[in-house]
Structure formats: C-alpha cells, structure tokens
C-alpha cells in the first residue's frame, strides 16, 4: 500500500519538474449522498439500519482532483468519507483514499493506470458510491453483496484498450493488484488479484464479462477457540485436524465470474447481472453467487424502477461430510472403550465431543446464507446535478439465515429470527 503512494508520488514529482504545458490544469469535482432509512426489524441490521431511522448507512462525501501536466499523462486522486463501513477499523466519516493513480495513454486506444484503483468485479464497481450514476438507491445487494466490501479497491496496475468494430466497441481491461481489509469480524488479506474484463457496447446494448482470480488469506479471529479445540481433539481423532482447516483460508484461490447486460429498449432501461465466487475445496469452501434484474422506465423527470434478485452463500458439502465422518469415528472410538474405562468418564468425553461438533456445525452454518429480494423505487431529477430517490425493499430469507440482514449478536438464536424483512430508504444524490 505504501508502495502505491511512493510510486504515484515519484511519478508526480518527476513530471512536475518537466516544462509543463501552458494548458495543463487541475479539475476539481465531487459527489455526495445523504441517505435516511430504517427496517421493520429491531433485532437485525441491514448495513447499519435497524428499527429506528438513521442517516449513516448510505451517506457519503467524495472529492476528486485530476491533474494533467502533459499530454498523455494525468493524475487522479479521490478522497471518500463514508457514514458507515463494513471494516470495523474504519471510523464513521473517516477519510479514505479511494483512487490515487497515474494514468498514461500509451497508444491511440490504450491506457495504463498505476496506483490505488477500484477492483472491477461488477458492472458498477467503479462508481459504486456515486449514487447519481445509477437509478437505484444503491446497487442491488444480490449482485453487489456486502461480503465484497474488502475487495472493492486494490493497489496495482490496469491496462484498458478498445477494439473498435463496425457496429460495436470492445473494451478490454487487464489488471493485477493486492489489498487488505476487514469485513465485520473477518480479516481479509488479498495477496494478489488478477483478471480480465470484456465489455462490448452496441448503441443501446452493453454486455460485460469479468473473470478475477484472487489469492487471499481469510481469517476469523472469533473462530480461534473452536480451531484450538478441533486441533486438541485431533490428538484423539486425526480427522479433526482437517476440520480445523475449514475455518480459515491461507493462500486460498477464489475465482470470480460475472456476466452483466444493460439494454435501453423502447425507453426501458433493463439491467441484469449474475456472478459466482468459486472457492478452493480443501479449506474454507464458501461458494456464493447472486443475480438481479432491474427494469426502469423514465417519465420526464421521474424514473420508477423495480428490481428482483437472489443471493446464496453455501459452505461446501464436503466440509459437513468430513465433520460428520470425524464425529462418527470419534463416537466409535469412545464406544470402543466401554467396559475398559468407567462410563461416567466416557459420557463426559461424549458430551464434550457433542458440544464441539455442534459448535463446528454452528460455525459453518453462519456462512449458509440465502435470500430473495424485491425492490420498488423511483428516482426524481430535482436539479441538473441532483437526484432524489426512494426505495422500498422486501427480502425473504432462506436456509435458516437472515440473508444480508445481520443479527446484532453472533450467538443470536436463528430459530427465532424472522423469515423476512423490509427496508425503506430515501437518498439525495448530488454531483458537483
């Protein structure tokens, strides 16, 4: 991360000492969103919304500067202060460097950028927090899950070039970088990400495919006691050493694929996206996928829209099977000592084993998440640079989870959690 600042700084200083053209100049701009919302569930949080009205979850302020000292070379810096971050180490409205890069137009159709960049997972990844740039209150969580928040930016390089065809343009982006961040209780160290995105644009239709390969460490400190217990139990039954590995990811490779389509047809604006995160099978095997489809139709200054989507995160069946197999071996082992050791000692061992097994299954189930969501909303163009939006979202939960709504305590009893929830949000987006 420091390397990024040093590199961009060095290039900036070097080029500043050149004889700068008279036309070189700075451009300053900014964006802001003021959001207010609530849910109908007090026991759950959606972003940072709960049963009471609050303003931080969607509120954001960003300032950007672009400096072009000479032809072909420019510097871009963007500072963002968010009302809420999924990274517990980031305070409310703490200023973060979102973009900081040097950009070189290498060829007629090619551009190289070096520095702090956005990781281009989804169609709107690069303008995720620029509410003015999309019709919704925020990008649909089914296609833009909060789990991705540690991966939204990287320190690295990307190269974008265009291939102009007769009826369309193909934009190809190649990238490589790294980052580290936290997501709620988890620590994520993205050691390396590389990938390619292909965006083909016709007049009214755009189709995009993205492939990204991540090598990362994923560590959940709250699982440490469980991992210790599993490792201790492996002295009795070696299979538990394997089970312990399921609760973290070391140098794990996760592959990401997504397909998006945006279509303007007969005044309709249709957008659909689907993604899949493919995990390694031998460690934390958490496969998640999501999709949404959105329809918007403008009437003068007002654009009503509807969005449908679904999201599913599953722990691999092999993890449950392995745990069950080890558990059964342990029971067989304990039963084998019946008659050799007193029953009360063996029963106590069995009780410990049951508690350990229940804890491990509970730990795995925390990552079993499924939901379907239905949103209806409208965007109103208040001014040339301001839009007011309101959205009502209904979410149905499945697999005993609470979808993207998070229990206020980890040990929340999932049996008593609601099966659905509703949220309402009103935002004002401004660009300046």
């Amino acid at each position, binding site marked *: 991360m420091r390397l990024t600042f040093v590199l961009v700084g060095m290039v900036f200083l070097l080029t500043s000492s050149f004889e700068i053209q008279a036309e070189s100049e700075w451009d300053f701009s900014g964006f802001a969103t003021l959001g207010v919302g609530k849910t109908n569930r007090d026991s759950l949080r959606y972003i940072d919304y709960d049963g009471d009205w609050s303003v931080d979850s969607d509120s954001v302020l960003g300032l950007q500067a672009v400096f072009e000292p000479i032809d072909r070379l420019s510097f871009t810096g963007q500072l963002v202060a968010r009302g809420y971050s999924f990274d517990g180490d980031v305070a409310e409205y703490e200023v973060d460097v979102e973009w900081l890069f040097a950009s070189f137009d290498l*060829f007629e159709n090619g551009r190289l950028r070096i520095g702090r960049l956005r990781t281009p997972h989804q169609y709107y990844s690069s303008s995720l927090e620029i509410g003015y740039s999309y019709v919704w209150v925020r990008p649909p969580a089914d296609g833009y899950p909060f789990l991705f928040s540690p991966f939204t930016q990287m320190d690295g390089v990307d190269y974008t070039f265009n291939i102009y065809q007769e009826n369309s343009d193909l934009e190809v982006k190649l990238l490589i970088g790294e980052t580290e961040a936290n997501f709620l209780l988890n620590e994520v160290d993205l050691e390396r990400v590389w990938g390619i995105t292909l965006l083909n644009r016709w007049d009214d239709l755009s189709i995009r495919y993205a492939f990204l390969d991540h090598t990362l460490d994923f560590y959940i400190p709250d699982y440490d006691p469980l991992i210790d217990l599993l490792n201790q139990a492996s002295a009795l039954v070696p299979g538990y050493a394997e089970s312990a590995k399921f609760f973290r990811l070391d140098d794990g490779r996760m592959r990401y694929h997504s397909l998006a389509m945006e279509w303007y047809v007969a005044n309709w604006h249709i957008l659909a996206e689907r993604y899949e995160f493919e995990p390694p099978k031998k460690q934390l095997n958490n496969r998640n996928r999501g999709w949404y489809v959105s329809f918007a139709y403008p009437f003068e200054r007002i654009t009503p829209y509807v969005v449908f989507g679904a999201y599913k995160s599953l722990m691999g069946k092999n993890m449950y099977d392995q745990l069950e197999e080890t558990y059964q071996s342990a029971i067989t082992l304990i039963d084998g000592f019946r008659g050799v050791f007193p029953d009360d000692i063996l029963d106590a061992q069995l009780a410990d084993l049951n508690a350990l097994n229940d804890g491990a299954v509970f730990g795995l189930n925390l990552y079993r998440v499924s939901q379907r969501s239905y949103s209806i909303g409208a965007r109103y163009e208040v001014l040339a640079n301001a839009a007011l939006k309101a959205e009502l979202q209904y979410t149905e939960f499945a697999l005993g989870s609470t979808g993207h709504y998070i229990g206020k305590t980890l040990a929340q009893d999932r049996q008593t959690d609601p099966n659905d929830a509703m949220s309402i949000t009103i935002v004002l987006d401004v660009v300046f």
Partner: protein
Amino acid sequence: MQQSFLFLRFVALIPYLGLLIILGIAQVSFAEDESLESEKIKKIEVLVVVNPANPVEKLTLKQVKQIFLGRMRRFPGVNAEMDVVDLSDSSELHYQFYQQIVNMDPTRLKRYRARYLFSGQGRLPKIVTSESDMIFFVQKRAAAVGYIALKEGEQTPEGLKVLFRQTLK
C-alpha cells in the same frame, strides 16, 4: 353577513387567479417559443469542427459518438491529443446533438458522465456557454474538437475545419 364574507373571500382570490392565468399563458407562450425554436432546429445542420491545423480529414458517425462519450481519447489514425469541448446542457443544440447524433438522452448522459468522471476514466469535456465561445475555443486550440449548428445558406465560420456534418430532423 356570512354571504358578504364569502363574497369578500372570493374577491380576495381574484389576484391569485390572475397570477395563475398569467403563469399559464407564460408557460403556453414559452412552449410556443420552444416549438418555434424546434422548428428552426429542424432546418439546421450540425457540424463537428476542429482546428485547421488538425491533420484528420473526416470522422464517421460512430467516431463522433465515441469522441463525445469519452470512449475515443485521441484523434483516430494520427494518435494526436484531443480536447473535447461541449455546450452546457441548457443549450437546445446540446440537447439535439446528443439526442439525434450521439443517441443518448440528457438524463442518461448525465448519469453516464458522472460514472465516467468518478470512476477515473478521464476528464469531462470543457463546457462553454455559447456557440461563439465554442468557435473561439476551437479556432485557438489545435487539439480541440467541438460542434456548431449551421442554418441553411450560412457559411462555415473561418478558422474551422469540418470533419462531420449531419442535418437534424
């Protein structure tokens, strides 16, 4: 007594009714002015212009779209610096240019440009407030590319090179 009170309230409302009528008439006449303006626009030609020092001789419709949407950042074929200049979005010519030539309505264009600017793809076009400023800018800068409207029978202003032309519907 009560009747005269109602009558007075009615009389008091007259100025407000008058104001509403005036506003209504103003709106209608404004709409008429707009339709007249549109009538004029229908008979004009849009020219995409550059500085005469620019070595490019011609642009296709597709290239014009790419340039004004920021998808083509250097002049095609010659790999030369490009400085796009645009009219402000309150201008009728801006509206017609993007609607008919670039094929993007104003609301969609604003969203597109917000995404373009804040996703680090590049700078937005320089904005000028009138066609005369546009002409002046292109005449002064070798890298500039802009657009102007020409009514039937009018000549292209001196110091400009036309790379693309299309009659507005």
